[in-house]
């Protein structure tokens, strides 16, 4: 029987009721008395010098409250970057200022130059049209290779060039060169990890108000991590101490990474509300989102694999250019380095691995973490390369992978991480069963009978989640700790509010987190409420990203609940005049072991708040505990994915016929939610592989700036997926044994799709080594023409 309660139960989500009835409260649903509306005048050129700004006519327009320009922000801090990466020469990365409103120059299309605050949005927009702005256009750098060439235009005039850092990591050069020198075969692949736009369906919104009475600012914002925004904006940009700044992230309509970062618009509305002493609201249009939300991916990589005569992997070397865009977004620098290089071993015991990454400034929107963040880039290059090696060697790609699997744990890779546990053979076995490998030949014949080509692609993935041990990331340059926090507040009647630092924007924390606490206490989930997204209500929190919520914040919640149990047992012991060590808690009842004496959960909680018969000399009244949890290691979800495609040789169109995902997430709290997370990740990965592409022209104009031009996956583009998480090796170092499931689908799926297309083409006699994503009909057809 499936469980209906506690850990492991596929409980229906309680948050769904408000979302299904239109009662959700997203940031744009918040309106504050007396609010004004803000519209940003943004750069329409990629690179230029601001010659003049004349706001006098605009300022006289109806309804205009005030117009702000870069001058208003002289002396105000810029947007900070949260991770200091060190160049291979030992120098710190170049970190140019990132102003709230452009200072003297514009460096990408969409950069905010002026902000008009007016009584209505229409008035703000109309007035922005009347601003007289002169920009002397400068040559733009868009292509990363060109940006690094001598004589290229510089994005930042006071830097020596467009190189942010040159990073090298992993095995010593001599060890890697020795591996390649002794190789029986070397496979080389050059590829692009296409630039993407995260596109949560809710565009960003920021509403700020200022209470002059107590000098307090409140910012409502579409954020995955309100405390991080409070810290960054308060301490680094506006100089507002934490106790005078409240950040609220209410219902948030999807994040996928792009709502982690601290954005100019949030700082602007908070600043402006203080200046004009009225609330200020900004709501992004989708077009603005395309040119102001941080983009994702955008790597160009050359990767080489050395194999010995028995096809064992003996060396791996990568050389990547990673686009940073015009400025360093909050965690941009960490994505191509510590979130990418450390995963290059994949699931394989390659003994020598070296990763080289050059991060490059270009006149494009800043690039930062997008679902998977560095790990999809690592997985894609490695798993495409292994497939290419198998084809070159004429061996079965699954067999080649199996032969090189890491099979004993813990396993320290040459790229600085230690996998605590895993079973890559089990997930591959499961995958083969799910995709029905024996039936493939018949399915291929069926496709061929219809004049179609059919291909099967397989790959593995590993990710580092549960971000992250603070001591470790501190050594690696993180300017933050990456613990999380939870407060468990038990009320007098026994109901519980759990204040968590994780933020739920689709992940179902409001349902899954109570399952954990209910399981520990033996009470019903309906007595437990999760509170999140408001810095005035929760103790602290680093937020939700990197598949960390349950592994890190959930662990803090477990620790706080353990403290609750310890204290409650003391109270129960006193009530029953027994020894504390003899008290057992089961199904919400405290029992003296070996007796029929018991008190109920509610008796104990009432005693804590009505302490008439209470050991006041030994313990305090009340029942509320807080825990901060800092993980000992990353977690390492892993798995194997397979995709079957049909290719129409007449048009090059690829159709996904089957997709199977065998994941090891360790223990699972709510399997329904976990499967939903995988489904969503798969669609994003399939979107990257087949459809999505963020395109700039040579002048830095963004060509894919709406849903008319940027191909989002629709219902008709994806199949029903087969997903499985039964091959579980629980994480060894967190109390729930959980690993995280939020990013796996997006990390694991792109290589399976591309491998499948190449299998279809090569099987049909087309000698095609690689096609860059998105594998569009045009690209497939061109590849088939040789």
């Amino acid at each position, binding site marked *: 029987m499936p469980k209906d309660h506690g850990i492991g139960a596929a409980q229906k*989500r309680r948050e769904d009721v408000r979302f299904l009835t239109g009662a959700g409260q997203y940031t744009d649903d918040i309106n504050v008395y007396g609010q004004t509306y803000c519209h940003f005048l943004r750069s329409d050129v990629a690179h230029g010098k601001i010659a003049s700004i004349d706001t006098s006519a605009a300022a006289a327009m109806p309804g205009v409250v005030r117009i702000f320009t870069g001058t208003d922000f002289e002396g105000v801090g810029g947007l900070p970057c949260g991770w200091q990466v060190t160049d291979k020469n030992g120098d710190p990365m170049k970190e140019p200022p990132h102003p709230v409103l452009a200072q003297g120059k514009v460096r990408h299309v969409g950069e905010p130059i002026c902000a008009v605050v007016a009584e209505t949005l229409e008035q703000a927009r109309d007035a922005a049209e009347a601003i007289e702005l002169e920009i002397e256009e400068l040559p733009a750098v868009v292509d990363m290779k060109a940006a690094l060439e001598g004589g290229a235009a510089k994005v930042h005039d006071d830097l020596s060039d467009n190189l942010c850092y040159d990073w090298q990591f992993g095995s010593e050069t001599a060890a890697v060169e020795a591996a390649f020198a002794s190789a029986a075969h070397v496979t080389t692949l050059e590829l692009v990890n296409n630039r993407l736009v995260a596109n949560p369906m809710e565009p960003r919104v920021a509403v700020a108000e200022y209470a002059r009475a107590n000098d307090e600012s409140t910012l409502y914002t579409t954020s995955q991590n309100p405390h991080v925004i409070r810290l960054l904006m308060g301490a680094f940009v506006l100089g507002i101490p934490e106790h005078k700044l409240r950040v609220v992230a209410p219902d948030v309509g999807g994040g996928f990474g792009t709502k982690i970062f601290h954005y100019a618009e949030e700082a602007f509305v908070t600043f402006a509300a203080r200046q004009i002493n009225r609330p200020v609201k900004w709501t992004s249009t989708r077009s603005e989102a395309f040119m102001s939300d941080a983009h994702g991916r955008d790597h160009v990589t050359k990767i080489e694999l050395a194999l010995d005569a028995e096809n064992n992997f003996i060396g791996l070397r990568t050389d990547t250019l990673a686009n940073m865009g015009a400025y360093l977004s909050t965690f941009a620098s960490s994505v191509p380095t510590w979130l990418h290089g450390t995963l290059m071993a994949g699931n394989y015991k390659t003994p020598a691995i070296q990763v080289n990454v050059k991060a490059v400034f270009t006149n494009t929107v800043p690039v930062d973490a997008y679902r998977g963040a560095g790990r999809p880039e690592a997985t894609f290059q490695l798993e495409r390369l292994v497939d290419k090696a198998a084809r070159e060697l004429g061996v079965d790609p699954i067999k080649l992978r199996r032969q090189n699997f890491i099979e004993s744990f813990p396993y320290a890779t040459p790229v600085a991480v230690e996998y605590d546990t895993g079973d890559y053979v089990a997930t591959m076995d499961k995958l083969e069963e799910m995709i029905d490998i024996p039936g493939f030949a018949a399915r291929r014949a069926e496709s061929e009978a219809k004049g179609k080509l059919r291909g099967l692609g397989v790959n593995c993935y590993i990710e580092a989640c549960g971000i992250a041990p603070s001591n470790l990331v501190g050594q690696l340059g993180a300017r933050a700790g990456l613990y999380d926090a939870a407060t468990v507040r038990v009320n007098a009647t026994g109901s519980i509010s759990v204040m968590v630092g994780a933020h739920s924007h689709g992940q179902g924390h409001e349902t899954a987190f109570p399952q954990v606490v209910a399981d520990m206490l033996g009470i019903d989930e309906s007595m437990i409420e999760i509170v999140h997204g408001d810095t005035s209500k929760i103790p602290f929190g680093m937020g939700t990203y990197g598949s960390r919520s349950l592994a890190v914040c959930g662990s803090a919640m477990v620790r706080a609940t353990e403290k609750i149990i310890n204290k409650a047992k003391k109270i129960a012991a006193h009530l029953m005049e027994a020894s504390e060590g003899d008290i057992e808690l089961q199904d919400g009842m405290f029992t003296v072991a070996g007796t029929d004496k018991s008190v109920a959960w509610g008796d104990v909680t009432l005693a804590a708040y009505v302490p008439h018969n209470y050991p006041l000399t030994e313990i305090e009244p009340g029942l509320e505990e807080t825990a901060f949890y800092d993980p000992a290691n990353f977690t390492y979800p892993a798995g194997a994915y397979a995709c079957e495609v049909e290719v129409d040789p007449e048009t090059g169109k690829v159709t996904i016929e089957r997709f199977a995902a065998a994941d090891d997430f360790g223990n699972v709290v709510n399997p329904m939610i976990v499967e939903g997370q995988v489904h969503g990740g798969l669609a994003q990965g399939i979107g990257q592989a087949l459809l999505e592409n963020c395109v700039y022209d040579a002048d830095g104009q963004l060509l894919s700036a709406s849903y008319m031009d940027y191909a989002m996956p629709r*219902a008709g583009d994806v199949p029903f997926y087969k997903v499985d998480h039964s091959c579980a090796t629980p994480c060894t170092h967190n109390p729930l044994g959980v690993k995280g499931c939020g990013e796996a689908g997006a990390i694991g799926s792109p290589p399976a799709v591309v491998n499948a297309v190449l299998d279809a083409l090569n099987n049909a006699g087309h000698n095609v080594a690689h096609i860059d994503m998105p594998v569009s009909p045009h690209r497939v057809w061109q590849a088939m023409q040789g």
Partner: protein
Amino acid sequence: MTKVTMTVNGKSVSKEVRGNMLMTEFLRDELHLTGTHVGCDTSQCGACNIHVNGENVKGCTIFAAECDGAEVGTIEGQANADGSLNAIQQAFQDHHGLQCGFCTPGMVMSAASLLKENPKPTEAEIRHYLEGNICRCTGYHNIVKAIMAASGQDVSSIAAE
């Protein structure tokens, strides 16, 4: 300004509106019915789908003035009279057909229109009908499944139960 009168979720409303006010603005800003969401500015995403005289319409493509005299339905009017979820809403909850919830009102409104036109749609018909509704969270699997279930079809054999 133009005076418009219409029935929204069974209730008659009358307001003075700008000629260029979209239905999304009218519902959200004038009537405070914030369940109708705005996810794009090119009429692609479908987060704003509403019913106008029984037709499935994107609220961002129609002016409030055009709805003068119309019967308008929004997500806020979809639940049963006793406040419980209707069959489509319940199927979305039962089959985890939503995550962040932002596209959900439009999905539910489109699903209702689809089932009115085609009470037992196939998987392919559902996927085709949802062409104008973008979801970034669910990968559509559980949305399609929920709509099939809401139409009374057995979904127990669909992968990934």
